[in-house]
């Protein structure tokens, strides 16, 4: 196990200063996962589709350590997690947003204590344009003016053509073609809250059934602009730098800016568990979460395109298990 951490460190050292593609690593201070005895049984997870890939990869890794456990992972949307935790059909509820107060209340009514929230990874929502689009940056009010019909973030008028966003030449007359997620998605809700100041989307946004299809759409459409997780980036699109307000600093989607909190559209991804206060947690769940927060688990986060937690955060999250 220790060798793997060393390995990750070595890899980073070797690839420092390499090509334009962003490069990131897991925090070398993260502890390697250590196997313990007495872990068995079957682990059920029901929740977010954003986290579906990640949960699958974690489960695969966890099963490597404990070949005797069985896992079942269902990812039908973040909203399916709270009912599953309440009905106890799942021990783990992955969610791409925090639980709403009403969901927490419902849980508390059933068990008498709130669910435990564990931060497991960081996701940044990027605003993508086609790779041939010369635009480099936007402010959040501009993003709002592009995607929203209510313009709650303060823009005076909507942006309909690329010229209004500052492009010249042939681009000036070109209308924007908008891509977004369908309303069942947590990404839709998050973008609405943070980039649209809780306003309404325009009716012209083409709603896609998955994050990857937003990126595909923008990659195929020269005039396209869309939002999706940074993990879904391909060579056909470019992520814009964003500024929280007009006149503010434009921040890139590189891992450092996201981790430092300067990038305006970053969010945590969560696992929710049912932990009774002052009683030890089921070892299976405890060990799974510890695995997720270990160096191995966070390496998986990186592999899936999300950003791993820093040791300080991971430590705090691990403490919630005790």
């Amino acid at each position, binding site marked *: 196990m220790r060798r793997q951490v060393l*390995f990750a460190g*070595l*890899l980073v050292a*070797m*690839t420092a200063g*390499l*090509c334009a*593609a*962003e*490069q*990131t690593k897991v925090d070398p201070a993260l502890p390697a996962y250590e196997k313990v005895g007495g872990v*068995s*049984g*079957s682990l*059920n997870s029901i929740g977010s*589709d954003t986290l*579906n*890939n990640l949960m*699958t*990869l974690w489960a695969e890794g966890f099963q*490597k350590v404990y*070949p*005797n456990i*069985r*896992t*079942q*992972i*269902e*990812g*039908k949307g973040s909203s399916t997690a709270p009912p599953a935790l309440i*009905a*106890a*059909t799942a021990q783990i509820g992955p969610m791409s947003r925090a639980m709403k107060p009403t969901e927490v209340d419902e849980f508390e009514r059933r068990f008498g204590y709130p669910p435990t929230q564990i931060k497991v990874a960081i996701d940044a929502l990027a605003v993508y344009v086609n*790779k*041939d689009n*010369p635009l480099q940056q936007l402010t959040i009010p501009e993003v709002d003016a592009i995607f929203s019909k209510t313009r709650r973030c303060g823009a005076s008028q909507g942006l309909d053509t690329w010229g209004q966003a500052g492009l010249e*030449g*042939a*681009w000036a007359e070109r209308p924007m073609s908008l891509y977004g997620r369908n309303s069942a998605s947590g990404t839709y809700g998050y973008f609405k809250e943070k980039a649209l100041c809780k306003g309404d989307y325009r009716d012209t946004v083409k709603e*896609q*059934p*998955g*994050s*990857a*299809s937003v*990126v*595909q759409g923008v990659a195929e459409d*020269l005039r396209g602009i869309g939002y999706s*997780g940074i*993990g*879904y*980036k*391909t*060579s*056909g699109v470019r992520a814009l730098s964003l500024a929280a307000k007009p006149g503010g600093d434009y921040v890139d989607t590189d891992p450092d800016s996201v981790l430092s909190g300067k990038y305006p559209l970053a969010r945590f991804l969560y696992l929710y568990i049912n932990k009774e206060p002052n009683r030890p947690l089921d070892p299976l769940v405890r060990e799974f979460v510890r695995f997720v927060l270990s160096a191995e688990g966070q390496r998986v986060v990186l*592999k*899936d*395109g999300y950003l791993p937690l820093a040791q300080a955060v991971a430590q705090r999250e691990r403490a919630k298990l005790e």
Partner: protein
Amino acid sequence: MPFARTTDRTGTVFSWLCGGALAVNLVLAIGLVGLIGWHGLGYFWQASVASFELRDGSALIGEIHTVEEVPEDSAQWAGEQRMRVKIGNRDLYRLDFRWVNESEIASIEYPDDLVVLERLEWGNFYGRMRELRRDGEVIASGPQVWTRFGEVYEEKAAEREAVEALERGPIGDVNYAIEGLRLQRRRLEMAGDSTAGRLADVDQRMAAATARYEALAEELFAMREELKDTTVVMEAANGQTREIVVGEVVRSLRPNAMGTLASLRLYGSRLWEFVSDAPRESNTEGGLFPAIFGTVMMVFLMSFAVAPFGVLAALYLREYATEGPMVRAVRIGVNNLAGVPSIVFGVFGLGFFVYSIGGTIDQLFYAEALPTPTFGTGGILWASLTLSLLTVPVVIVAAEEGLAAVPRIVREGSLALGATKFETIWRVVLPAAAPGILTGMILAMARAAGEVAPLMIVGMVKLAPTLPLDHHFPYVHLERKFMHLGFHVYDVGFQSPNVEAAQPLVFATALLLVGVVIAMNLVAIVVRNRVRRAYSTSVL
């Protein structure tokens, strides 16, 4: 029709019209399958690997995937060619692909010593082999690495197979036994059966099984450790090196040094992996065997459910019920059922089969496993039943038509010879109508195999840990969740984080799904033709 009367009494124009309609259909069908086939079959072909020198002094190694002209608007590079290069090495570059403009390139070469490693994790690695190490010591370097790697690879591949066999075989068995014992113990507890003897007996067996597991696990970890002892040092385009465990290499190739025969063998081996292996890297690599299996098994279960159901209903409607407003209303109702959106059936299946029936079954028979549901959650049985509801109108309509086509004279002949109504139906009418009924089944199966939406809520999952059919008693596990080709297409195409690399896989899966449907239909058609032949010689 005045059209027919005045202008085209011979029907020449009309026959052209018919032929034209058929031609359009054919072109559409062939075009669609051709498109899927072109993209899908290309997925398995290994392209040459190019080594690029760029003008800024850096280098690239990768496969050229597409070449296109830069559109006018991209001011800097307008009018020139650019290419999308698969550079792989996801652990180094994060992205699998990169666009390169013509004017950035100083030279392109195809040296023989470029190596592609297909890995269990992180996708392909493109580069050159530098060293082979065992336990940290160099055992080969320079040009000998490639030959030596071949031997080591064989050895490690065998070891990896042994590890997988151990995981699937003995460890899987002992886990299954432990889970069974746990449930048995819980059942005894719940029954209040404190007969110490039985509980102690279960505990004893549990302890034995756990001990067996511990021993096996130790063996497994030792084998895994051994698997990791040999590594190959690879050098990527710009001189970065990466140490890769030989046991985690699926395939190693030198595409530029391969002849046609070797390329074809590689193609065959990838195709075989695709249909016979389990998926890896959250379904974007490896094979699709569990999804093929799940799709076929689900369709078969559905056929078993829908055939008797649909045929009996059609028999009643056609043979027993008196023609009248009631029967007509039922018939219209059945026909309209075929137009209900499939997701509605899915929701019905979830509410009725999964929650009501499944929940009740759990409380009655699987209480020891609660709150983890057994039948009270989606599974292959509920998925099949939901689809059989969806397809039953097709079968009823086809069966009715089949029954209606049996000449009245045949029935009357049978009755006149003294057969009862039941005997007439069973011995005469039903065999004669069988080909029509089977046609209905063929349509129903094709419909069911392509259906995705309702299954998403009644038991289809992205990755099922076990097949619904295995060597553990009772062999068929109808409560298990299953994988499906159609859902694989949806999931990889719309949800996969690495969609650029996974896109050809979507086409390959779609092609496979079409292939599976065709295969199942062919079987049904052969059966139908046999029935038809048997009937034409023996009855009439």
